[in-house]
């Protein structure tokens, strides 16, 4: 079997996962598609470095890094540094006010509104929290795999997950209060 055929069999099936992560990090369909295409070309180039372990986590690490390189170049404003040790109350306040969003009490009760609310709140999170939450809750990666992909220690992954969840909860809370 050729190298390309082996790649197509073991890596290409994770195209949806790659796109999901890129879409959440770039927050835009078109940009996500560009990043995914670039990430796959890069993955094929470094396919020899994939050992027997999980090809999905390996691919997602490449997608993550391609996204960050892209964001750094095209949307440096998205690359806000976060304080891993700091307090988050100030962040939560500013997030709650960042976007007015929809505040119609009737739609909030609908399930589709709940989805919209979660989607918007997650999109608003700083990218450092968003990436760990998407990798953990949507892609089901282990702490270790996330730590490897994001290039941070496992302890940082855990604290970012906790803070990210807390920020998300508060953002949603603020939105719901405004709506009711």
């Amino acid at each position, binding site marked *: 079997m050729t190298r390309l055929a082996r*790649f197509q069999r073991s890596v290409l099936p994770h195209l949806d996962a790659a796109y999901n992560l890129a879409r959440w990090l770039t927050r835009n369909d078109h940009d*996500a*598609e560009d990043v995914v295409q670039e990430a796959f070309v890069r993955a*094929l180039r*470094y396919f020899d470095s994939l050992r027997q372990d999980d090809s999905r986590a390996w691919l997602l690490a490449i997608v993550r890094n391609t996204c960050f*390189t892209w964001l750094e170049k095209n949307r440096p404003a998205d690359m806000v540094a976060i304080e891993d040790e700091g307090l988050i109350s100030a962040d939560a306040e500013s997030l709650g006010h960042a976007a007015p969003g929809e505040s119609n009490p009737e739609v909030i009760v609908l399930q589709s509104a709940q989805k919209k609310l979660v989607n918007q709140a997650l999109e608003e999170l700083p990218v450092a929290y968003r990436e760990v939450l998407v990798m*953990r809750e949507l892609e089901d990666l282990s702490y270790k795999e996330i730590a490897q992909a994001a290039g941070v*220690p496992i302890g940082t992954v855990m604290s970012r997950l906790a803070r990210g969840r807390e920020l998300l909860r508060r953002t949603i809370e603020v939105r*719901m209060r405004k709506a009711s």
Partner: protein
Amino acid sequence: MNSGPGDSAEMIARDATYHRASEDLRKRVGAALAREAGESRKPFLWHLFGTALACAAVAVLTWSLALTMLLPGGDERIAQEIVTAHVRSLMAPNHLADVVSTDQHTVKPWFTGKLDFAPPVADYAASGFTLTGGRLDYVDGRAAAAITYRHRLHVVNVFVWPATGEADRAPHTHARQGYSLVGWTRGGLRFCAVGDVAAADLGVLADLLRDKT
């Protein structure tokens, strides 16, 4: 709403959209991969062709001459030199860098006047490669810039030296003594990144530096 953080994890899993790739993207990626595979196949065939020619030449020569011809060629020899320089740089704490700084505006000017070329220097902390400094080194019989990065707990050295009259070359990876190497040539400079990290991670740094030059 009084849900704890655990609930918001559940909320993401349940309510956040899982974005799926479009059929169009699937086709685009397939085509890009075929293109990439096609591009890398050609140099490989040329490489084989070159090796075959060299072997034929060797067969014609005497055994002693053949022995000298089988000694490591250019790339192999340089890869060995680079691994040696990398290992040496790790042996004592102050072998690694002559100028210690995470600021590219400190490291880059340091090379001015010490080298007859200007190596690209930048910090990529956001992508996991924190600039830690630079030093002078010696590769392929020439003075070279060695720019040092920290990637998690690993040290990465990037060697840069002039490529006299060489064409640009896409990144190619080697592994040697447990170290990964990614080498490329661009704009009249040869680059080689080395470290005990995955080749794909080094590739990320290679791509960042290539964007810069």
